[in-house]
């Protein structure tokens, strides 16, 4: 019994240490942004790399997610004869919740994990110390461009993904539930407000920040060789997933 309590305590301490570390890194990142002297070459390189990697998987995921939503809500709506609301059921959930969350999770897995792996490998092979020895601040040179690139990319991907998801919802609605394209389109247009769309986008900004900071933190604090890299990636995706859920909760309540 006492061992269990000790374990919980140790676990809580570790989480607190990680949260503290991420907060400190966030502070360093923010400070490096004032004045905004970013290495533009690194920024562009990362934007390209992250966008390239994640578009296919996000598009595919969004398509399926949209389809799924229609599968869930469609039959119910059809039974009630309210097919006009079919788009609303799927679309609302997609724009406000499913879209941003799923896309953020996929982004975290694809780009966040990869970023952690890269930074961790650089740390393990002393390239990070090498930067410091060249009197170049790793936060300014490596972390900041990646954080910015990830946040920008996630917002762009969420917008694209939302649209693809609505498309997927329509396709599934048409193919499997015999709901007409025009019905879906009109129910989207009638029931979904621009604010619903923006709500999802605001969330993606927060998710992007959480994924980026967690990913970079676990990358640069890695310890041990190849094993440490794997562990760092693991920790980064888990931390990102938890942050996404928590942020989603708070943002939903705060902004309605």
């Amino acid at each position, binding site marked *: 019994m006492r061992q269990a309590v000790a374990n919980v305590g140790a676990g809580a301490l570790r989480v607190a240490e990680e949260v503290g570390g991420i907060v400190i890194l966030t502070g360093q990142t923010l400070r490096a942004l004032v004045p905004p002297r970013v290495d533009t070459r690194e920024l562009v390189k990362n934007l390209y790399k992250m966008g390239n990697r994640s578009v296919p*998987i996000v598009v*595919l*995921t969004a398509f*399926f*997610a949209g*389809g*799924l939503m229609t*599968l*869930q809500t469609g*039959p*119910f709506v*059809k*039974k009630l004869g309210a097919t006009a609301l079919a788009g*609303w059921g799927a679309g*609302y*959930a997609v724009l*406000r*919740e499913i879209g941003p*969350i*799923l896309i953020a*999770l*996929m982004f*975290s*897995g*694809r780009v966040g*994990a*990869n970023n*952690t*792996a*890269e930074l*961790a*490998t650089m740390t*393990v*092979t002393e390239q990070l110390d090498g930067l410091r020895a060249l009197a170049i601040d790793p936060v300014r040179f490596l972390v900041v461009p990646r954080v910015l690139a990830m946040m920008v990319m996630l917002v762009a991907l969420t917008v694209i993904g939302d649209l693809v998801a609505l498309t997927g919802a329509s396709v599934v609605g048409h193919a*499997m*539930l015999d709901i007409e394209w025009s019905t879906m389109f009109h129910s989207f247009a009638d029931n979904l407000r621009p604010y619903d769309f923006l709500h999802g986008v605001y969330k993606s900004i927060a998710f992007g920040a959480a994924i980026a900071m967690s990913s970079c933190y676990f990358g640069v604090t890695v310890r041990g*060789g*190849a*094993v*440490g*890299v*794997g*562990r760092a*990636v*693991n920790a980064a*995706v*888990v931390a*990102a*997933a*938890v942050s996404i*859920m*928590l942020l*989603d*909760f708070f943002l*939903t*309540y705060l902004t*309605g």
Partner: protein
Amino acid sequence: MTRFAETIGDAIVAAVRAVRDLWLVYVGTVAGLVRKSRVPHRGEVARQLYAIGNRSLVFVIVTLGFIGMVMTYEACLQLSRVVGDYTQVGPQYLRLVISDFAPTLTALMLATRVGAGIAAEIGSMKVTEQIDALRMSGVLPIDYLIVPRFVASVIMTLVLSTVGGAVMYAAGGLTAQYSFGVNPNNFYGLQFVRPRHVVMMIVKALSYGAAIPVVAGFCGLRARGSSEGVGWATTAAVIGSSFAVIVLDFVISAAALFVTGGDL
């Protein structure tokens, strides 16, 4: 022009090979299971049960709890704008939790936690040549590494889905009660739950539980190089297992729709 066709051709060949290798891993795992049923690696399975179950429990409870609250909040919010009647929210929500959200969301969370962990572990073993060492001492890596994790994952995904679902539902109920004044008696009701929903949940949980370790183990075994290779393997595992969960969800839901003739 031919260069372009070549590139596409190469990509298709690589993809087909990958799928075939993945399938081989799956078959190898099932074969290992059958073989091992006479000499089970009980200790290893138990260890994996602990590794997966115990350490993911808090994670699953926290994440599913929060998302349960959010979903109920959103649903009630939207209903308040359109219909104004909350009596159906709870029971409908329960139906969705059981047939879809609980197993799928739990599996997505496990794909990150467990999938990454398995790939990282097996990947580091691969790049430090421990896998080769295993082979040379006559042990099949799939038998020794993947099969115990497979068994543990299938069991644990089902268990955690149930726990997660309960937490999601309860959290939803609390949210509905305190934010929208929904009467708990109205919220907690089994009216819309049919046996087929429970069947769907079990089928989904078992499928996800099977898919995650196979995909993650596959990625881990393919790791090459050094720390960079391990990073790659872990990333691929998280993406691959998450995507597998989503696709399986879609396929199973569509199949269920087909079987029940359009009545979910």
